[in-house]
């Protein structure tokens, strides 16, 4: 749910007025801290739509399920193409599954 930020990778979107994650979050939850790194203002309010994960050009964000709901640690990683998206899901036992489909254009 609340995005986990890789502070090494996050470049604060070069400390622009609004970082890309901040621009896109439907809940007005992502922003930059004093050190210009992204963080989620109120993790309990995140709806896990993953818009920020998809928007980050550095791949610095990752979604996590709160511990009350799921165990440590599973990962779901989207990779955005121009008209495709792939998802890689790694469960807590290390099982890897992959999904790939077109997300823009006619299916013919």
């Amino acid at each position, binding site marked *: 749910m609340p995005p986990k930020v890789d502070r090494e*990778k996050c470049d604060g*979107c*070069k400390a*622009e007025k609004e970082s*890309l994650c901040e*621009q*896109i979050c439907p809940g007005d939850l992502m922003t930059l801290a004093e050190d210009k790194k992204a963080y989620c203002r109120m993790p309990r309010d995140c709806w896990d739509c993953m818009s920020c994960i998809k*928007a980050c*050009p*550095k*791949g610095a964000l*990752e979604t996590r399920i709160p511990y009350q709901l799921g165990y440590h640690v599973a*990962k779901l*990683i989207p*990779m*955005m*193409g*121009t*008209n*495709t*998206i*792939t998802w*890689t899901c*790694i469960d807590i036992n290390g099982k*890897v599954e*992959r999904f*790939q489909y077109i997300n823009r254009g006619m299916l013919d």
Partner: protein
Amino acid sequence: MQKTIPKIGLFIYEQGGRLARAIDLDAVIQRLARIKNVTRCEVLTDLAAPLPSIKEDFTSDKFNRILWVGKFSDYQKKTIQSELSSAGLNPYMHEWCDIEEQGIGIDGVDLGIQTQKAILIIQMSLARTRLLEPLEPLELPAIDAALIIGAGVSGLHTATSFMELGKKVYLVEKESGVGGKVASLHRLYPRICDPRCGLEFEIQKIRESDMVEVHTLSKVKSLEGSPGNFDVRIEKQPRYVSEEKCNACGECMKVCPAVIPEEQRSRESAFINETSQQVLNSLKSEKKAIHPAVPMPYPPTFLIERQSCPSECRECVKVCPAQAIELEQTSSEMAFKVGAVIVTTGWDPYQLSKVEEYGYGIYPNVISNLEMERLLESPPAIEEIGFIQCAGSRDERHLNYCSSVCCSVALKHVLYLKEKLPDARCYIFYQDIRTPGFDEELYQKVKSLHNVIFIRGNPSTVKPGDDGKLKIRTEDTFSGKEIDLSLDLLVLAGGMMPSQGSFEIAQLLNLPQNNFGFFESHLQCHPEESQRTGILVGGACRGPMNISQSIESSHRAAMEVLPFLNRTILIEPKYPVLDLTKCDKCKRCMEECPFLSYVFDENGFPSLDLTKCRQCGNCMGICPLIAISLRNNTIKQIAAQIQALKSSFMGKEEPVILAFLCENDAYHAAKSAVEYGLPVPPNVFFIKVPCAGSVNNALVADALAFGIDGVLIAGCKDGQCHYVKGNQLVKTRSGDLSDKLQKMMIDPQRVRFESLEIRDSKKYVELVKSYIEELRAMGPNPFKS
């Protein structure tokens, strides 16, 4: 928005049965003819004969774009395009696909595989062809006037050249007169002639023309706008004399009571003796508060150094026959428009006082090579003279480079000195004597003179002798002996550094500088390049060089800006276009553009200056929302090409590589690999891109999503990218993608960046081969179906 249904004419040009030997041509044609939208598909063995029917088919709307497959000479391409252009087909509606350059026809590859590969290559081109749009170059209005900053030798020569081409010139100079450093020299080598002669020659031309406006005591205050349409503001300091009325008669100077001594170094020292006093006298120069322009008296108007005037003094006013004195003048501003800017701000001598061991500024008889110029006009009676070469140069404590002219200058000084003082003993302390080209003659001549001694070694600290002479100790590295000498005069060969004006202009115009402060450029290929379109640099502000090199350098810059000095500028229609519905103003395109071609518009969106843009596509590469596309190479086109590549065409186990090759270096390496018959494996397909930096991560993601096993991005080596840093940008970016792949439990090496130089064909083949081995070991891409 009207959408045209693409209808494609597909022609395979088969010469002498070459293709048929490598692939099953019939199978290929059959396969291609079945494709939707391909309305005519055939093999041509000749180009001239079918052309009329092709024209006819186009005119009758059988197809509205053409894909040409095969090898065509430039002449053939041009003929085809112009023939069809006369029928109304825009030249950008032709697509050229050379299947052989992708490796079709290489010995030893199975016919079936080659045929399959050929079909895929053509299908990739078809994908592009479907999305072609007719494109027209843009014509933008421009101003055919140039701004030249700095009226030294480079600036003057460039001004007259532009003038002769009928272009208006604004020549802006911060001193009161033109001529720069060259005007302060006294003799030039090898002819030992007066430099003002050559300068006067150019000044004459400027005088007689009304195309050159010379603004002295002026500096550029701001430069805005874009190539072809720059808005310049300059600030002029007051001269206090009217440029219109003053005729340089000099009456004022006769009555002026105020004398300005030249800025003296501290001479109040215990080191004054007879010789050093004579040196001081020779170097003394004074001028009145009202004086002609310096260094050269052009513009001919006098000027007044107001701060030196005694208060209430009006002597010059009283006496001036033309009533040209204007004591109430203030600084003023001027604005004008130009199409291009040449920066020729020249050099300044290195501050030799920093080379503490030689006592410049402490001992009056230690002087610089520039000061020696003046001294030689009327040298004092000196007997022992030392020249220390590389004083403060080739030294990491001072200037860590060679100023290239100092050796020839010292030799010139010795020659001239010996003419005036034949019995003088000259010692030249050197590390290396660098007299390239024909300057060798100068060296031979001086070596043959009597009482000229060359000592290879670095003198140690200079000490004052009791008699006011200078004691110097040096090691002669050839004999290994130490030599002690007592000298009347020591001349330090100071180096050239970028002028103060150069630093100021660099700041104002945002021009990149190298470590030494000279303007940064691609030294060998494009020395005048400044990374700012329409603004170029020439002359010694680029680096230490002699006078003729300076003039040549600024002319090279002038040639480069000529296209902007026209009433219209033609922009090739390959520039990037931004989709505002996708843009969220993250500004990454603005930051990564190597040429600062983007600015914010009034709504905060990036706006491209078409005349600054070099059409490299780096903005297309970085945009995280794939909102930018080059007009002739759009994201959709490349995505369609990638989608057309069937990654399992050799079976699931055999890896397929998609390579993005930069068209400046890597592409040629790949192409010539095939031409030399090197064994290029069939596994690799390439897409040509204008710069490796134009490859967007989303396209790489597409490639992986569609099952391509490995993506190779090949560009230039560091420091060699034609667009400054495209290779570095894509290396960083694709590195981020590789990190993501690792998190996804996919081998990060499935995306890699490599550098290839233009003739690295062997390296290309080795690279591809080893990549295939690695991919085989990794197993197929997990997304491969």
